[in-house]
């Protein structure tokens, strides 16, 4: 690079006085702004995105004068971070949310992965129809889904058991289509010759699945599971219809709006953000380490 530049410069010099010199550019404010417009707008958008998160983190250190939080920052305290479980029912709701999300994620991921394999790898009567129908839960408004699920559970006589089981059933339902779509995308891009190569190299059907198919599909399956978990964990609408007397974390947040938010809610919010942030960063670092 340096050689090329030097040669270019000497070439220009030897060609005599005809070498045209670029006029020195005068710094102008308009030009300066134009050069940085994209950067400026980008920063604005980022700020816009992060303000609510910053607000939540800030309020998690707030010491409200009354029993519940106010919108104004009154005094700094570490207290809220050590008394997360103090507000009535907060930690119970978090526990229920985790139980529901983890169960729903496992069920939806297993079922959805199997469905994706069936839809991509096998041709059977009704495959085209299945491919279409699987999108329906995604396209259905949650309110409609929630209301119809409640009506169905009640008419089936489930009204006495509304709670964990019905929430999980409902969550698996709407997570399933996202899992199928995500895993399918991965499988479609997979080269079936790799499996043939494995079979050619003395791997029987199970070993081929275990050693080649599954590891290759794994990024898709993991992505699908993470998606299912986050959809399930913060679902409010469908849960609200199917929860009966049970209270998940989103339902708790909504309920406490009426009584006034306890400041510990902001601690939980900050923690959720920090954990997902750590997962994203960790994933990115892991990805860079292994090309």
């Amino acid at each position: 690079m340096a050689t090329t530049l030097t040669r270019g410069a000497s070439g220009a010099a030897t060609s005599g006085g005809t070498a045209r010199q670029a006029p020195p550019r005068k710094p102008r404010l308009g030009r300066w702004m134009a050069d940085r417009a994209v950067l400026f707008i980008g920063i604005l958008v980022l700020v816009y995105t992060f303000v609510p998160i910053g607000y939540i983190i800030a309020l998690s250190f707030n010491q409200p004068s009354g029993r519940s939080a106010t919108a104004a920052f009154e005094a700094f305290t570490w207290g809220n971070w050590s008394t997360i479980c103090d507000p009535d029912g907060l930690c119970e709701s978090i526990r229920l949310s985790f139980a529901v999300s983890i169960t729903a994620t496992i069920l939806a991921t297993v079922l959805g992965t199997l469905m994706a394999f069936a839809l991509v790898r096998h041709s059977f009567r009704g495959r085209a129809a299945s491919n279409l129908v699987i999108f329906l839960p995604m396209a259905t408004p949650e309110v409609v889904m929630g209301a119809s699920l409640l009506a169905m559970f009640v008419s089936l006589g489930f009204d006495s058991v509304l709670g964990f089981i019905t929430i999980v059933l409902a969550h698996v339902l709407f997570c399933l289509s996202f899992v199928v779509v995500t895993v399918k995308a991965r499988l479609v891009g997979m080269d079936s010759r790799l499996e043939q190569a494995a079979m050619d190299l003395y791997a029987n059907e199970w070993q081929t699945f275990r050693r080649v198919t599954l590891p290759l599909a794994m990024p898709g399956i993991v992505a699908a599971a993470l998606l299912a978990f986050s959809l399930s964990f913060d679902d409010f609408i469908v849960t609200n219809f199917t929860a009966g007397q049970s209270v998940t974390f989103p339902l708790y947040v909504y309920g406490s709006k009426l009584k006034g938010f306890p400041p510990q809610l902001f601690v939980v919010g900050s923690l959720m953000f920090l954990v997902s942030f750590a997962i994203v960063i960790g994933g990115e670092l892991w990805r860079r380490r292994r090309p």
Partner: protein
Amino acid sequence: MSQGGRDLRLEGVTKRFGDFVAVDDLTLSVPQGSFFALLGPSGCGKTTTLRIIAGLEDPTQGQVFIGEEDITGLRPYKRPVNTVFQSYALFPHLSIAENVAFGLRRRGIKDFKSRTRDMLGLVQLEPYADRRPAQLSGGQQQRVALARALVNEPGVLLLDEPLGALDLKLRRQMQIELKRIQTEIDVTFVHVTHDQEEAMTMADTIAVMNNGVIEQMGHPEELYENPETTFVANFLGQSNLIVTEVLSSSPERVSVDCHGQQLEIDSARSHTDSGRGWLGVRPEKITATARGAEGRNGANLLSGGRVSDVSFVGVSTQYLVAMPWGQELMVFEQNTGQRAQLRNGDEVDLAWAPEHAFLLDARQDAHAGVMTPEDLE
């Protein structure tokens, strides 16, 4: 692993996909330790044949044997056969060493580590053992694919256009390399390719396939010098095919009339003995001389030509000679410097030795097997 009598045999193998017959009643035998090439244009059934041998495709009819063992119904992982796939099919989630060790580990072989290392040494990829396939160049990936198959010491190694993705220079190197390895380890290689030069460079025996059947099988030189069909004459190298009428045939020579001039052909190279026939002669076998300059001297002489095109390609000069009946014949001449170059419009006679021509049945299509660049992709 290699023991006597492990020949690969196909008997009456047919594969139909719906109405399409990909492989039509194929019977062939590949002696153990030989380098066998299945050569043909795309869609001729050569890859399907390979996949039937590998067990990745079930034949509609017929049987596959290795030695005396009928392997027709065996699953791919039960066959002593390994494949180097087109575009390699290396496992992207495994390192190079893990790729190579894959087959050994599936068979529970204890010293897979040392065997893997030895094999990586053979293909000169030891320093890359811990890398992923995506970090290697095309030529290196090709060697990994070869190592991954060979480390299992298969009875038969199948190669499905293994060099197709490499550039020309690398391809030539790998051809020599493959041939060297094959000679060293004495494994039967079945190589599928559409590249006639590649097949001729490497194979002991070539089977030229077209439309699911073998047109002709034999040593490369035999196929080139004495093709039995117009397809082989055109697909392997280039041929001038001139329509002639058979006048007489004796055990040694067949005489033909070619637009009023009498020519002779060796009986051994004559694949028709009455009626009309295509007289075939390779462009490099023809000598073009100024009209009337040379006597016959026992050679075939075809006069009345006029040079219509001259292309100088360095090592040789390629002429097109327009004949009185409207056909243009190709003549290649080495640039030895012994003779002056001909010029456009020169009147010439064409001469060649009778043993350099061949005679084919005129009912065959003179353009069969003429490859356009699209066919080769």
